[in-house]
């Protein structure tokens, strides 16, 4: 990424973005208060939302929903319309921001090709009912009972593979609410975040909302060059998402792709132990830990998402992710986001930064290209890897993901080339995928014991009795 590109990215917001986000904030506030009795300010905010969507296909649905909600009668259809309206605004914000990013970087993007919806799942009704109750109550009214009521729909959704996304989302949201009860006592609620999760949950819980991610329209062969790995986790789920360049065997331009594997977990499994939950994917983990390429054969792909199958992957020669990014990233073909997934929080675009100065802006670590600062998302450095804020501060090259939140772009580092004790080292978030390579950390981990093994022993003795 060049200084001129960073300037193009950070010079001004896309037109209408601020207005769209203000409308979203209005919905967020209404959800914080609850829809049981909509106050004047919230009613005005919802009316503005309906007006803003007046020229879209959602116009009539949303106008009616807002009318009825403000009059005190909330049906599931009205809530679906409200969630849809909010998601449409954020989807548009996503498109505008990603368009700005593509224009700045000169990144080409293949449009999305529609897929047929999956069959409705019987577990969705329970989730819809809970989300309904939550919206009517409002975040500020959430109590132990309402949080506990999430248990049954989560369990049902988790048992059905096609509703895994919904299960993981609801469980993450419920855990946050549980920790915050009584929410009324909080100085402020994370209104944007919880409304994001609520709205996505409502859409995923619609019978027509489930687009089966397995619907494969495409299969690819080729060589995969991993750039870096992004790690996600909450109390009961984790996922690693590997961003990579795919050189298609059939020829054509390299493709910017990603592949995700994940596992259920519990809150006491944290840090490097996370990797042990992914032992079903040895080839992928070895590629990360050893920084090697992978030859893949006949892998399903939807948009940019390769669906990983370890038995269709073979380890290839060493790959320097920095070199791969330098040579192949500028010409790599990206792919559009699935329609339902469009939200600014979903933007995670790989970039390589070199030749920057490391700075400090009011305590925030920033990388400066031609004097233009880009804040580092140090809060997105995972505890399962060796990459620390200190290493980023000592770095001269950084591979990372561009992200956007609350009005600004930030860089989430996935790897750095840094100077430590006068020696150049490369440090990647995935370096410990096959075990901790730092003796001191390994010793501390060994002392803490194997959480997964202890819990499996307990499960073996106590479950199914």
């Amino acid at each position, binding site marked *: 990424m060049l200084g001129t590109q960073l300037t193009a990215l950070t010079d001004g917001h896309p037109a209408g973005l601020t207005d769209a986000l203000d409308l979203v904030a209005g919905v967020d506030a209404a959800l914080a208060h609850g829809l049981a009795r909509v106050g004047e300010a919230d009613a005005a905010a919802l009316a503005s939302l309906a007006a803003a969507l007046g020229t879209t296909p959602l116009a009539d649905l949303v106008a009616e929903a807002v009318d009825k909600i403000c009059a005190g009668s909330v049906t599931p259809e009205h809530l679906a319309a409200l969630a849809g309206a909010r998601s449409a605004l954020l989807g548009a914000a996503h498109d505008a921001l990603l368009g700005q990013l593509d224009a700045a970087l000169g990144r080409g993007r293949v449009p999305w090709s529609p897929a047929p919806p999956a069959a409705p799942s019987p577990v969705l009704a329970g989730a819809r009912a809970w989300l309904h109750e939550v919206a009517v109550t409002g975040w500020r009214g959430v109590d132990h009972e309402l949080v506990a009521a999430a248990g049954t729909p989560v369990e049902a959704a988790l048992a059905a593979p096609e509703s895994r996304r919904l299960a993981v989302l609801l469980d993450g949201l419920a855990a946050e609410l549980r920790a915050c009860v009584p929410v009324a006592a909080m100085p402020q609620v994370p209104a944007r*975040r919880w409304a994001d999760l609520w709205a996505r949950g409502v859409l995923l819980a619609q019978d027509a909302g489930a687009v089966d991610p397995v619907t494969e329209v495409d299969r690819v062969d080729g060589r995969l060059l991993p750039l870096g790995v992004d790690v*996600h986790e909450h109390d009961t789920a984790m996922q690693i998402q590997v961003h990579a360049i795919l050189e298609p065997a059939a020829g054509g331009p390299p493709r910017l792709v990603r592949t995700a*594997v994940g596992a259920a977990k519990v809150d006491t499994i944290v840090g490097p132990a996370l990797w042990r939950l992914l032992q079903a994917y040895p080839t992928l983990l070895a590629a990360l830990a050893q920084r090697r390429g992978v030859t893949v054969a006949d892998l399903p792909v939807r948009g940019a998402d390769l669906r990983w199958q370890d038995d269709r992957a073979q380890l290839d020669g060493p790959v320097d992710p920095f070199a791969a990014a330098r040579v192949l990233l500028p010409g790599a073909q990206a792919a559009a986001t699935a329609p339902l997934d469009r939200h600014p*929080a979903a933007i995670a675009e790989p970039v390589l930064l070199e030749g920057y100065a490391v700075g400090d802006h009011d305590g925030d670590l920033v990388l400066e290209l031609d004097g233009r600062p880009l804040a580092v998302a140090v*809060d997105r450095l995972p505890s399962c890897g060796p990459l620390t804020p200190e290493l980023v501060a000592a770095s001269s090259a950084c591979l990372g993901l561009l992200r956007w939140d609350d*009005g600004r772009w930030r860089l989430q580092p996935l790897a750095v080339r840094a100077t430590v004790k006068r020696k150049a080292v490369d440090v990647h978030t995935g370096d410990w995928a096959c075990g901790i390579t730092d003796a001191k950390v390994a010793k501390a981990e060994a002392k803490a014991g194997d959480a997964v093994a202890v819990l499996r022993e307990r499960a073996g003795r106590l479950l199914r009795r």
Partner: protein
Amino acid sequence: MADVDDAGWARRSSVRVVPAARPRKLAKVPFVELADGRLQGVVSSGSDIERVYVSSLTSGTHAYHCSTNNNRPCGGLRGTPCKHLEALADEAILQYGLDRVARYLRVDAGDGVTTGAELLGRLDARHEPTQAAVVFSRFLRHLSYLEVPSSTTPLPELHWFPSTGAGR
């Protein structure tokens, strides 16, 4: 609840609302949680590998109880919390930090409190039998997560839940 006072908190999608649990040894107390208005969990018996104790301490009222998972009362309860409850409180402090545990129980921990026993000592606690079944079934539910098969379905919603805490 790290940056709850930050003005931008309400307008950000990716804020960490709940700090991740801190790593701790699980052998003695495999399960601790702050839920349903209680600090509750499961403590492995020191003498019988097949036995576990279910211990709980209610927020606000500070009523405590400890029994086996078959509802046999713990012999260590003699007008004061037993060693299982102390172990539970110790591990809760390790996992969540003293502040969060004290806030949840609604107790003013004050200075000089670092261990579970010291925290229990600050309470005007009383014994009140409760059913072990609720807590024990939550523990079994907890363990059942380890039996859920891993998956290659991308979970876009996890972008709201970044892993954090490098170098901790």
